[in-house]
């Protein structure tokens, strides 16, 4: 066996050597993808590091441009009916990597599959606007009853239950990519295989060794293959921030999608200024309050006092110091859709805020003489811990004793799901670039509404109306009004808008920081 191994490893090195020779002139981009992909099947992944590769393999009808804006993808154009209920996509003349034409049947097949209950897609609810989608996803209706119709080989029609402002955004997500019906039918559900999987995107999968690397090669049959400048892309799943930094410094990776650890940020800023690329992300860091009856935070005065006494700049500048923006809202400012509004005290000075906070606590029956004890939950991370400690210190003068409860992520999120907390750290990163992604969570049936017990009928009604409003200005006004209700109720403790901090070698051209954190490789090149 040993000999066998030796032989095969010799063969491997020969093969590697040969590839290196033949691709001496090839442009190879080496990316640290920050984690091992959970799946390359667009219907089964759910993380950023999954979709980062999926997007390169499977193009969508609606695509992201280099700056993150929506542009035509496999559909060269689309029409939206006056009432916003019917979307008609016109597919361009394109081929799968095996030469088979990409048709509207493939697009319909994919949407049907996405909503099949046994596929258990975790973002399926973003497509619930499609006629009959909730019933299909719950297994109560056949996939054929879905409001997805093939008008001809190149035309797909999707009908919605109600106008839905963010529907086009959903169609740009990796889940919505057309899939090769002919290949999946032949392979079954276990169809992701290096060198075999039929793809539509700019790259095809040639190698996948779990925890080591995923290798993609340019797909010559991609409809815009001439514009693709990279020949090969290697994704490494480096989940250790310092390990990633070391390898970036040693020149063995060109882009690192691990965040820069806050402890190393100053060093990186000083020593790798050309490589550090920062930008806003559609994501929000906040704490949830449990508003259930009988909990201290059911009292709005206490929620307001805690918000008043929180010095967000201390957290963003002194604790993190990585360009995060202090936030007095739930919807990150970079989100498209025009959500405005902020907590009423946002521009007041700290002395006035503290005076009012103390008064509110006093009114609620608490103070340094009669302290209120609150339990604050956070999941394991150095930064989460530092922020939790800072909050406890900021609230101390109000007569609030904070008991900190740290747990690993699975326990933390399970506790939130069950509403088993008083104050809990939370973070939301958008799946679609739309305010609904954040505000929808706080409706009575939304995930945060369920966990925290927040209920405001006016808020629910406004969110419902905003979802169906197609006029952008009117919708922005509704969204802003809804968010203001949430903020005036002090239903949560917003802290900051997320940013991304990535390392990108100056050799890499065409890379842009985008709010949805998408960086299509077809626009990227590398100089030797």
């Amino acid at each position, binding site marked *: 066996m040993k000999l066998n191994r030796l032989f095969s490893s010799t063969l491997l090195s020969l093969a590697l050597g040969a590839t290196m020779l033949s691709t001496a002139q090839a442009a190879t981009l080496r990316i640290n993808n920050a984690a091992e992909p959970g799946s390359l099947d667009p219907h089964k992944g759910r993380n950023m590091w999954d979709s980062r590769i999926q997007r390169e393999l499977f193009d969508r009808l609606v695509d992201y441009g280099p700056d993150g804006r929506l542009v035509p993808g496999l559909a060269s154009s689309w029409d939206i009916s006056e009432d916003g209920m019917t979307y008609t996509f016109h597919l361009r003349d394109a081929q799968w990597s095996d030469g088979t034409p990409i048709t509207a049947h493939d697009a319909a097949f994919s949407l049907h599959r996405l909503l099949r209950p046994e596929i258990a897609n975790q973002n399926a609810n973003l497509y619930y606007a499609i006629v009959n989608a909730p019933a299909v996803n719950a297994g109560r209706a056949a996939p054929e009853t879905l409001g997805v119709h093939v008008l001809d080989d190149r035309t797909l029609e999707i009908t919605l239950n109600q106008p839905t402002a963010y529907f086009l955004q959903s169609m740009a997500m990796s889940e919505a990519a057309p899939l090769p019906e002919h290949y999946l039918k032949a392979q079954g559900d276990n169809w992701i295989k290096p060198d075999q999987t039929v793809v539509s995107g700019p790259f095809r999968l040639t190698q996948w060794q779990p925890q*080591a690397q995923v290798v993609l090669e340019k797909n010559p049959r991609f409809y815009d293959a001439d514009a693709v400048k990279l020949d090969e892309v290697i994704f490494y799943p480096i989940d250790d921030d310092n390990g990633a930094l*070391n390898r970036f410094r040693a020149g063995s990776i060109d882009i690192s999608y691990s965040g820069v650890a806050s402890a190393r940020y100053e060093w990186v800023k000083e020593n790798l200024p050309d490589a550090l690329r920062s930008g806003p992300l559609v994501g929000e860091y906040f704490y949830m309050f449990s508003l259930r009856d009988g909990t201290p935070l059911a009292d709005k005065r206490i929620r307001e006092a805690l918000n008043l006494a929180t010095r967000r700049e201390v957290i963003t500048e002194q604790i993190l110091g990585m360009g995060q923006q202090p936030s007095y809202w739930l919807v990150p400012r970079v989100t498209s859709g025009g959500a405005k509004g902020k907590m009423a005290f946002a521009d007041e000075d700290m002395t006035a805020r503290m005076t009012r906070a103390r008064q509110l606590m006093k009114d609620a029956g608490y103070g340094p003489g009669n302290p209120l004890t609150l339990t604050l939950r956070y999941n394991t991370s150095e930064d989460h811990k530092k922020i939790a400690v800072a909050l406890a210190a900021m609230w101390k003068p109000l007569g609030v004793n904070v008991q900190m409860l740290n747990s690993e992520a699975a326990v933390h999120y399970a506790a939130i799901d069950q509403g088993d907390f008083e104050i809990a750290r939370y973070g939301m990163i958008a799946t679609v670039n739309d305010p609904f992604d954040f505000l929808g969570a706080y409706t009575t049936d939304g995930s945060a509404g369920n966990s925290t017990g927040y209920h405001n009928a006016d808020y629910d009604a406004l969110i419902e109306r905003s979802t169906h409003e197609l006029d952008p200005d009117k919708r922005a006004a509704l969204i802003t009004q809804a968010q203001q209700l949430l903020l005036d109720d002090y239903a949560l403790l917003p802290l900051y808008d997320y940013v991304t901090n990535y390392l990108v070698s100056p050799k890499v051209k065409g890379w842009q920081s985008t709010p949805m954190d998408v960086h299509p490789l077809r626009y990227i090149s590398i100089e030797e």
Partner: protein
Amino acid sequence: MLSYTLKRLALAIPTLLIVITISFFLMRVAPGGPFDGERQLPPEIEANLKAAYHLDEPLPMQYLRYMGNLLQGDFGPSFKYKDFSVTELIVQGFPVSLELGFWAILLALAIGLPLGVIAALKRNSSIDYLVMSIALGGIAVPNFVIAPLLALVFGVLLAWLPAGGWNGGAWQNMLLPVIALSIQQIAYIARMMRASMIEILSSHFIRTARAKGLSESEVIWRHAMRPAMLPVVSYLGPAIAGIITGSVVIEQIFGIPGIGRYFVQGALNRDYTLVMGTVVFYGALIVLLNLIVDLLYSVLDPQIRYDD
């Protein structure tokens, strides 16, 4: 000896069954599930997920299903790495951990044993103190300190070796992780070897050997070495099992595709099938290696015989 071996192997089956059963239920008692993540799931989607992985069935039913599949050699699909079965993950990762571990153990023995012997022979000399303080340092400094330091110095600052990555197992990529893995083992083995050698050298049969007029090197190599190695050998059983099943720290820091991380990550992600798969695998490996150690005893020490 054959019937002893068979008896031990037969005993391994109930042992493993108990390990599997306890692990299965312990894992489920832990709060949180595989689908509890930053983004909360709507109830209908959670229901779909649970049904897809049979998590909606009663626990005893799930246990029977798992055991049934296990008997057919099926560890099930990973919850987190959905394009691979647990078997595929172990099959792809284990050779990497094994190779790395093999070299680390070899290096540890090649350095640790002679160091221990020298320290024992030069007992209480400056060489002894030097070796033992280095060994103490090796035990005291954890590998999550040594590994990044090695990567930084040799990978980044001097740029002699890759700072990480596996690269199909090229020796350049293996060198630093092997060193990082073996430093602690060198320290343990050296200390153990020294203590045991000192004890053996003061025993009667060594005095007899010396009295017969044998040269010092003959005394050490022919008579003292074998019995002195017994404690090291019994330590090596579980140590080898531990090392060849990978180290999550070393694998993470150097980006090595072994199976060490599956234990820890699997448990943190509540990837039930992956955790169970690694537990079964690790359990079987320990049972096997302990058996080998026990058989080696009889080779090293004639007083130990496995007769029936």
